[in-house]
């Protein structure tokens, strides 16, 4: 299967909006049309052809060669097919994504997968703050889908997140799951300080917490069936990339009792 590839000619010097470089928006366009797509609007606008060499034919795969913190909105709105990036990307990667697969070989900036509804995102590096979070004007953060981060995750991951699963092989930064309404954050390395401030519902799973908020209550050891369901479902979705299955028994910290307290931090170690 052929791929449509975009190769950076030189390191960009300003933020570029790459949300148009997804299969459904490129379908039916000629190379010339694609090169004329705007990545920055306005009098100092930047077009695809100004910064990328475009090659290949469009099917359902887009490959971006290059790496820059200025590559924003990579795979944003992706609704099928795949987008791969060989290096790091900027903010808002996978924002509003609905389906398909986004693979980022380097780090991702802030707001990865914010308001995403579906699909799979795999970041081989680390991810910035507000992963799956809200930016001003959003009612909720992530709404579905699966994110896998091989490295660490920044602060306030899952801010106002409602559904979906975020898995980190590394550690989550401070205040993960803040104001979270639903969904699952799962780390194989542990949570930073004070996870779950104003956590309403939703599940934080990890081996340890650096500092537990005083508004969480210790519910002791539990063995809920849902852990088996999560493990199996994620194994099915991620295949060989899936993390090790959860243990049958975990310790539950319930909260945040500063709000409705139906959320949970499940300690696996």
């Amino acid at each position, binding site marked *: 299967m052929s791929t449509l590839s975009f190769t950076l000619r030189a390191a960009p010097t300003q933020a570029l909006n790459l949300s148009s470089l997804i299969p459904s928006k490129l379908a039916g366009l000629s190379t010339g049309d694609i090169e004329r797509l705007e990545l920055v609007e306005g009098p100092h606008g930047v077009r695809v052809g100004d910064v990328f060499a475009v090659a290949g034919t469009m099917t359902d795969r887009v490959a971006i060669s290059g790496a820059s913190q200025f590559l924003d909105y990579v795979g944003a709105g992706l609704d099928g097919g795949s987008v791969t990036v060989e290096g790091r990307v900027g903010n808002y990667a996978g924002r509003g994504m609905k389906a398909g697969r986004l693979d980022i070989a380097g780090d991702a900036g802030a707001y990865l997968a914010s308001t995403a509804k579906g699909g799979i995102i795999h970041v081989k590096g680390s991810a910035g703050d507000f992963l799956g979070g809200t930016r001003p004007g959003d009612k909720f953060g992530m709404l*579905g889908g699966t994110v896998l981060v091989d490295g660490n995750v920044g602060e306030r991951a899952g801010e106002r997140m409602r*559904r979906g*699963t975020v898995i980190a092989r590394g550690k989550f930064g401070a205040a993960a799951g803040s104001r979270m309404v*639903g969904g*699952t954050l799962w780390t194989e390395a542990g949570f930073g300080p004070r996870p779950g401030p104003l956590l309403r*519902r939703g*599940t934080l799973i990890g081996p340890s917490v650096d500092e537990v908020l005083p508004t969480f209550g210790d519910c002791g050891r*539990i*063995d*809920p*069936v*849902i852990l*088996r*369901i*999560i*493990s*199996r*479902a*994620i194994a*099915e*979705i991620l295949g060989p990339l899936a993390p090790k299955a959860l243990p049958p028994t975990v310790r539950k910290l319930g909260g945040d009792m500063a709000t409705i307290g*139906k959320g949970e931090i499940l300690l696996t170690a």
Partner: protein
Amino acid sequence: MSATTINGVVIDDTFAEAFGMSALGLVITADTPKWANICATVMTGFGTSVIGAGAECGIDRELSPDETPDGRPGVRVLMFGFSPDALVPQLRNRVGQCVLTSPGSACYNGLDSATTMGLAAGPRFFGDGWQTAKKIGNRRFWRVPVMDGEFVIEDKCGVTTDAVGGGNLLMLGRDRAGLLEAAEAAVAAIAKVDDVITPFPGGIVRSGSKVGSKYKGAIASTNDAFCPTLKGVVTTECSPDTISVLEIVIDGLTSKAVAESMRVGLKTLIEVGPSKGLTRVSAGNYGGKLGQHHYHLKDLLP
């Protein structure tokens, strides 16, 4: 009516008349196969006939841990009713009283279908506000806190209106105990067919009915034509040597599954029956005017 005789068993040239029904499937899991079976057995209890029991229920098959959403041993049960609406109270009551209450149980959708109905619509409110939902992939699971941990129940279950109820085989014999053994063997063979249940006790019914009654208020009454003790005083369907008649009723998610069940049941009866006193196999119908599905025995012969 010309009959065929195979291996000494007379196969009547007649047909089983079955009806279109609605059905749903559930997967019930538990910590052990024993408790999955207890839960499924109780949940499908008193589910023999839509006429008096509200729904026809039974165990389709046992499931290995690999086949269930939570990796625990499970059982697939099927429920049949006149319509999806008629299944609603049955589902709510049976799940609420028999599955929610069973130690370690969890309850999932067991039928892929474009049409769904609420599975957790009632039971989740047992959580009194502490119930939470977890959506993973396309499936939403409710977690209801209970005394042994959490009761997990899927939000919706598939329902089909293409199901068939009332496939049947009538067995006539000259030895009551032997005929029951032959019927048991046929039920065991049918149990290996997927997507079907035999809802009566042990899969076998001894009180076949006809429509109507001499008494007001009774919509069905004994099928006197197949009652051996009346064969000298009514217009009988029994043979002169008939001592006992048993029936296997089959409900299936598809017409094909019902036909296949009748085929394997018939095959088993022909193989096992002669040594058990089976003399004849027939089928129940209403003249062909009531049911949409007709299964002619001659088309199902081995």
